[in-house]
């Protein structure tokens, strides 16, 4: 009897405690861990600006918290009530953020919409919008850009050689090294082949969820097959590209096993640590189709420019935030051109601002940081933003249903059964089906 009595009393205490928890939390902003100090300082500036403009103290406490930007959207969705009022995420998370009735609020302030429109490249403007209940809204406010670039070892590769994969392969053969290391073989890291465009015209037959339509995927064009055949030759050359190993690309670069690496700005510190003064940074190279690779319209001698996903990180606002009335004004400030410029100078965040390369002084300096920024900006000419934000399905179908593994099988060709163009085409038909439906053809 007493046992039950005590049990009930404690259960009630737990229940009341749980129900009674939760005083008012401060206005919370999640930014990348590397930028926490920077944005904390910026919010102090914002408060001063608020006082100056309105003549009143900003009425709420503001907490800036550093998070892993790669998982911030998922963390937010795991418990939206506990999520930040403003948080950062890559634009391709938009699909899952706005699934159903959306967890994020649309931008409504005309001033902020105007700033977004004026400051960002056209490609970004398309991927920050989404449709909820049949109406299109702008949800993301871009402030960081990112693309893949080539890190290379200047001790082995000359600047001229770094412009083409053939040059890099030549350097690898001369020094008996591997031409390239990769960080991974997923759908992001294979983009240097898959998204390659004809150098002269910028054309490609590849389509990935064009106009946000699930069926608009095409990966079986002649040029795609030829490019993958080139990739297969590149991966199977004794001195060619290496699939990722358990040793990791840093070890491979540092131990001079391979002489170049495709990576983003987030790999910069590790690449610098691995190569020191020998680190060179440039845009991704071109490659030329030879007679063994030519297929249909993709004729011998066609030059392709390696491609990339050219993405943006954007701020999003929590739907139903208790601080909704303040959020857009804060974002107007945080994503302004001036703050983006300072962010680049102080924490090397590549700005989303479209004229940064011409207008920001730090871009003109002769430093590795500036070279990295310049290379990333140039890669935007040859890249597309990940087109997966239109629906939560796209990201899953593209990355998680086995398509990257099928493409890797083409590149590695471990059993020798994917040597012919026809075999590659058949494999890409499976990939295309996975992109469109998440299922392999029966």
């Amino acid at each position, binding site marked *: 009897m007493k*046992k039950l009595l005590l049990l009930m009393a404690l259960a009630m205490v737990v229940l009341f405690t749980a129900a009674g928890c939760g005083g008012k939390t401060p206005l919370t902003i999640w930014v990348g861990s590397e930028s926490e100090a920077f944005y904390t300082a910026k919010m102090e500036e914002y408060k001063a600006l608020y006082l100056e403009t309105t003549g009143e103290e900003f009425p709420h406490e503001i907490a800036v918290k550093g998070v892993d930007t790669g998982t911030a959207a998922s963390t937010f969705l795991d418990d939206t009530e506990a999520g930040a009022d403003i948080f950062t995420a890559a634009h391709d998370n938009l699909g899952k953020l706005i699934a159903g*009735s959306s967890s994020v609020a649309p931008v409504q302030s005309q001033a902020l919409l105007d700033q977004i429109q004026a400051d960002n490249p056209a490609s970004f403007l398309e991927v920050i919008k989404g449709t909820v209940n049949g109406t299109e809204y702008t949800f993301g406010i871009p402030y960081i850009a990112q693309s893949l670039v080539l890190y290379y070892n200047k001790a082995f590769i000359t600047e001229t050689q770094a412009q083409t994969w053939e040059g890099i392969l030549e350097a690898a053969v001369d020094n008996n090294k591997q031409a390239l290391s990769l960080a991974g073989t997923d759908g992001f890291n294979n983009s240097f082949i898959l998204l390659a465009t004809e150098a002269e015209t910028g054309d490609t037959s590849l389509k990935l969820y064009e106009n946000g339509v699930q069926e608009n995927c095409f990966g079986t064009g002649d040029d795609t097959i030829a490019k993958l055949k080139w990739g297969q030759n590149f991966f199977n050359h004794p001195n060619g590209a290496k699939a990722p*190993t358990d040793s990791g690309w840093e070890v491979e670069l540092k131990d001079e096993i391979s002489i170049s690496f495709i990576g983003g700005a987030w790999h910069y510190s590790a690449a610098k640590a691995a190569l020191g003064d020998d680190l060179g940074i440039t845009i991704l190279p071109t490659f030329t189709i030879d007679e063994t690779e030519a297929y249909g319209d993709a004729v011998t001698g066609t030059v392709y420019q390696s491609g990339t996903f050219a993405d943006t990180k954007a701020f999003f606002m929590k739907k139903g935030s208790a601080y909704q009335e303040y959020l857009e004004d804060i974002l107007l400030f945080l994503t302004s051109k001036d703050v983006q410029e300072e962010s680049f100078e102080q924490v090397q965040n590549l700005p989303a601002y479209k004229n940064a390369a011409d207008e920001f002084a730090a871009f003109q300096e002769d430093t590795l940081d500036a070279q990295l920024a310049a290379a990333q900006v140039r890669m935007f000419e040859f890249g597309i933003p990940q087109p997966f934000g239109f629906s939560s399905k796209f990201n899953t179908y593209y990355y998680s*249903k086995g398509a990257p593994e*099928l493409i890797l099988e083409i590149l590695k060709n471990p059993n020798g059964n994917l040597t012919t163009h026809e075999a590659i085409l058949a494999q890409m038909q499976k990939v295309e089906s996975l992109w469109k439906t998440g299922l392999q053809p029966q």
Partner: protein
Amino acid sequence: MSQISERKNEKSSETSRFLSFFKNLGIKTKNAFLKFGNRFKDGSIGTKLSHFIMGSGNLYHKQIAKGLIYLALQIAFLFIFITSPEVNSTPLGFKSIINFITLGTEEGDIFNPTDNSMLMLLFGVIVFGLIGLFLAAYSSNIKSSYKADLDKRKGKKPTSFKQDIESLLDERFHIAMLTPAIIGILIFTILPTIFMILIAFTNFDSQHPAGQVLFDWVGLKNFADIFSGTGEISVRFGPVLGWTLIWAFFATSTNYIGGILLALLINKKGIKLKKLWRTVFILTIALPQFISLLAMRNLLSEYGPINAMLLELGITDAPISFLSNAESAWTARITIIVINIWIGVPYTMLMTSGILMNVPTELYEAAQIDGATKRQAFFNITIPYILFITTPYLITSFIGNITSFNVIYLLTGGGPGVPGYKAGETDLLVTWLYKLTIDESEYNIGSVIAILTFIITASATLISYRRSKSFKEEDAFQ
């Protein structure tokens, strides 16, 4: 023949035990209702009243504190149940029961929230739990009052609150101590388990994120999907389950046999520096397992020391991928099993050493008197004794290996990959489950796999343990 009939008898006795469990349950329930009615008829006015207002019986018997606690519990419960206070915009009370059935109806729009089906499911489970606890307290309140009635009829004074507290700190101290543990188990084990099981019967997946899109009950559809023969889950379930069982068998048997052999070797008469050898092997236990595993992965990586040595010695002419990039699935699988031996053998060695030091010496003396050779003593005393003691360990070890996460996740991450599928060649059910839930948000399928894993492990445990000598001849080595 006799063995067959023994097994038949065993089976029929297990079946009858199973049936009698439900029969007894029915009888107990019936008795409880009868007692409930009798107490109402036979009880004092206070006891009768306590059927409607909790604590009134105790108050009637001047057990003020106890009566007020019961009353407070009833008020608190009814307050929560009727007002249904909102937690994270989801009601917790009688509305939770409706929500538990519907899993939400409000689809929301760009400015208004969607009902959070996941919280509704969770709160439904919590409210059913609270109702259960409330009914237990309700029954306790009646029993308490009726006991006071009986005490009075016997001429005794009903116990005071102070006496009850003193009793809880003295002869019923075990209750005071066990209560927090029971509450902990209820909140942290039973409630999440029920919640997890229920998810298997919904369509809570990446296309139905909680709070954005409503999800619903789908019956046994998720279970049917696993056996449908199409889609990744169905295609990969068999191979992953097969490898999980192979892994569990080899990981358990190699560690078990290896550990016993090592212990026998170290404990053999004539072996010098026994303590040193034991310490050396125990060092792998002293290090956190994940560090050992990551170190092994680096040692075996394509450009790690082992490959460098093989190249240097001319044994190979190119680095070998032993783990996630291995050309053959079996290369990675065998490597994992071998690494697991290195990590797991010291545990068995340590345990077996302890057992060997405690084998009753009189058994050997008796064998010696009977003229047994050392070899006979070893095979007829030492080995059976070790097996008898370690059978439960062997079973738990097998189960532990079925759900072993660290070794696979840290060494290969499930790789080498299978073209077209996420579940790799070395993925176990549990690592696949991790990918499905954490990476893919396919909570419903993850839950189905968790339930199937539980069924496999529970069946394996029950069957093997009940058939072991450790269970059948429990008193043999006392």
